[in-house]
């Protein structure tokens, strides 16, 4: 091998650069944020579905609501406990969860997803 020294040194530097981010960030993993409840949400105790379901599948529920409301004209949702909710992001979801930045955004940011809901749907005004 010609120029073995240069190649090996180059390789070491190259691999070192490649691994630098891992080394640099080791042990500094961002903690998963915990969604915070507003007093109103805490008081309500139950959401439109089980908390575990809402945690993993709220997007599917919202998509189904969207389909049913816009395309089907069906605007009322009966929860498993018999309670009837008006299917609306603004008027139902955000009525309790009026803290969008602490309830929605921090998790979405953590997961690096940016739902385009807010291009049209209006987030509640938050007092900081």
């Amino acid at each position: 091998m010609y120029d073995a020294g240069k190649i090996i040194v180059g390789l070491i530097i190259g691999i070192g650069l490649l691994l630098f981010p891992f080394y640099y960030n080791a042990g500094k993993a961002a903690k998963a944020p915990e969604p915070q409840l507003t007093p109103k949400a805490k008081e309500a105790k139950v959401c439109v579905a089980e908390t575990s379901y809402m945690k993993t599948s709220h997007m599917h529920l919202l998509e189904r609501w969207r389909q049913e409301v816009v395309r089907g004209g069906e605007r009322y949702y009966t929860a498993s406990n018999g309670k009837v909710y008006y299917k609306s992001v603004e008027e139902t979801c955000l009525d309790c969860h009026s803290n969008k930045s602490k309830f929605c955004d921090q998790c979405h940011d953590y997961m690096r997803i940016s739902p385009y809901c807010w291009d049209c749907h209006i987030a509640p005004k938050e007092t900081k």
Partner: protein
Amino acid sequence: MDIDRRKFLKIAGLSAVMGIGGKAAFELLAPKELEASLREVPLTQGKKWGMVVNMAKMDDEIMKRCMEACNRVHNIPNFGDPRVEIKWIWEETYEHSFPGQEHEYIGEKYLGRNFLLMCNHCTDPPCCRVCPTGATWKREDGIVMMDWHRCIGCRFCMAGCPYGSRSFNWGDPRKAPKELNPDFPTNRDYPTRSKGVVEKCTFCDERIARGQIPACVEAANEIREGALVFGDLDDPDSDIRKVLRAHYSIRRKPELGTGPNVYYII
């Protein structure tokens, strides 16, 4: 394994019979379930919403109030530029509203007077025919509805609509000039639209769903009862049918065959 012609035809024939039989059996056995699945999306059944604009009772002040009410309820921005204007309900002169029905001897009562225009919620809407994504469609209750989630902004519907009822969002409505829209969005319970989406009057479907009449009708009735009449054209006893029976009315461009459902008493 080799299949000769005879064997192949046997199998093919048998499969066809089984196939047809299978479907029929399904329909026979489970008619209720099939029906139920079709009815999964309930609509206001057997209705045909329509509107009467009674120009005998209408004046510029009422028209202005109607337009303001609509803009406020639906977060319609004012860009201050007619080229990018968003309009759900607007006013236009007689000769522009009813082209072909004007002549030089028509009186001042009509010529030059403004008429209140909106989406006609046509019986056979050309906008729905041309929409490539199904983002606009005719609901069973007669409303020509829009799904802004699904609109790709191709503007075929705007080309298809002979009434100019559809507007395109050339820019983000939230970026409309602040001085013209000081308190935008005016209704925080209703979404704004996004750039690249077409919009129009929906006969206030969100209000109808809660048993309220459209915002423009409400605003008009506050000043003068009967200037705008909204109701079910399918119901012979409805107010709108009574008004239409009692007065002669015209529609915009009926010769096009779109079947407009907004009537004008002039």
